């Protein structure tokens, strides 16, 4: 009998992907690591459950991210891997970059009713003070807040509201003048969007010790969602460019 062929490791160890984003996290990588290689910090203080590709249940230990496949394409099969997060789950990365014009894209499935503090992602410090950027639900709709440490403003979507198990894609811009704008698509449908807000001058830096945070701000309760992708891209390119920026 001949031995089977063994594939070599996925990546040559001496080379890494070159990301052209500020941050790009993909659930399919089954890692807290960004495409650029920056390792995230995951915390949860208790056990929690998930299901596998076949729908069988598993209890994850305290600090174990809940990698769970979901039916992202509505095919009836759990084909896409993501990170299931509850109100106690936190995933953060350092945010050493300054406030600047940027575009973001976040893909997730709602896994429970959003509350007034149900954050999707944020750039904020532990006290949620100083300059910050927060995408969160007000209990009904998603809103994007830009605070420059002195004054804050928020744009909030209206109309269609995400419900449990909805596949949600939210994208938005922080413009160079500090104004913000937000778009939302539910279950692959047409986008709804807000008007562009008034200007709100960018601060020189985010609040002291700010982190990029998925699912929570520094102080508020987390959301309950299954996350597939979070991407922040420099500048305000059109959506097609944001989608294909690696």
């Amino acid at each position, binding site marked *: 009998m*001949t*031995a*089977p*062929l*063994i*594939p*070599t*490791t*996925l*990546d*040559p160890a001496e*080379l*890494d*992907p*070159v990301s*052209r984003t500020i941050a790009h996290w993909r659930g*399919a990588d*089954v890692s807290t690591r960004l495409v650029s290689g920056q390792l995230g*910090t*995951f*915390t949860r*203080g*208790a*056990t929690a459950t*998930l*299901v*596998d*590709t*076949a729908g*069988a*249940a*598993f*209890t*994850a*230990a*305290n*600090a*174990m991210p809940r*990698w*769970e*496949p979901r039916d992202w394409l509505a095919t009836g099969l759990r*084909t*896409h*891997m993501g990170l299931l997060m509850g109100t106690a789950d936190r995933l953060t990365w350092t945010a050493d970059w300054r406030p600047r014009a940027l575009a973001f894209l976040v893909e997730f499935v709602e896994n429970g009713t959003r509350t007034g503090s149900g954050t999707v992602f944020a750039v904020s410090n532990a006290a949620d003070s100083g300059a910050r950027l927060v995408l969160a639900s007000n209990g009904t709709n998603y809103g994007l807040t830009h605070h420059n440490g002195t004054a804050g403003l928020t744009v909030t979507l209206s109309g269609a509201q995400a419900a449990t198990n909805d596949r949600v894609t939210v994208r938005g811009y922080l413009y160079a003048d500090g104004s913000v704008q937000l778009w939302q698509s539910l279950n692959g449908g047409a986008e709804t969007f807000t008007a562009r807000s008034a200007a709100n001058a960018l601060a020189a830096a985010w609040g002291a010790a700010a982190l990029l945070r998925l699912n929570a701000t520094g102080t508020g309760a987390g959301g309950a969602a299954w996350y597939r992708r979070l991407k922040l891209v420099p500048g305000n390119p059109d959506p*097609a460019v944001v*989608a*294909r*920026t*690696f």
Partner: protein
Amino acid sequence: VPTIYLNDTPIEALGLSLAEGGPLLGGFSVTRATQSWQGRAGGIASPVGTVGPRVVRMVADARVASAAARLALMDALADTLTGLIEVRYEDAPDRVLRGTARVFEAAVAMAPSWVNLDPRVVVEIECPNAARVDVEPRSVVLGATPAAVPVGTLPHGGRVFLTGAAAGALSTETRLRYRGVSGVLLGELVLLPALLAGEFLTIDLDAPSLVRTTTAGVTSNVYGWKTGGAFFRPAPRDGVRSADAWGTLELTAGAGLYVYARQWST
């Protein structure tokens, strides 16, 4: 219509039109040494075969309006072809190759290049892992009952996240067993873990390694917990694809979650 994606970017979005080197349909070439013996007709095959790195080659044309636009296109391509590159094909967008560019050439059909602007671009990307890998991994919950592990056309590794029952403590001998579709034992890893409640062990079948993670998220190397057996890889030869019947994994103690990406020669 997109043809080839380089790091999620269709080459068409870069301004290229694919001329040659379309999707790879076949598997790869295996080199297997044979030794001739006197008095024998034929040779004796080596027990192992060898496959070199996969080379993705594409030839594409671009239409540019000026020499400056051509230079901008070349710069954009050079940026894209930096570092480890993910390559996907439109006809199999859910499988990915990863490699580095070893050839990036561009030439015009006829000199002088400042009169004939449109370049023909040749790119070769060498992929150390010749396999195409599932973009989206799969997961299987493991316990005492053998759980089927669907496989691509090549063996794969992956990671098992091991805990006590319901994420409780685990300090008894635990065997991770891999069986073929006939039930015969093909691989076994024997562990003597010392997991506290809320902790988990990551068994990396690729590395291979054993890493303990505490409730505080602190990790440590616990390779010494391996007391017997050997790391293994589920392989397609252990299942029957046409019957959707596969090799299985089971645990003699505790609970596990196996996360892996299938690997394909095609």
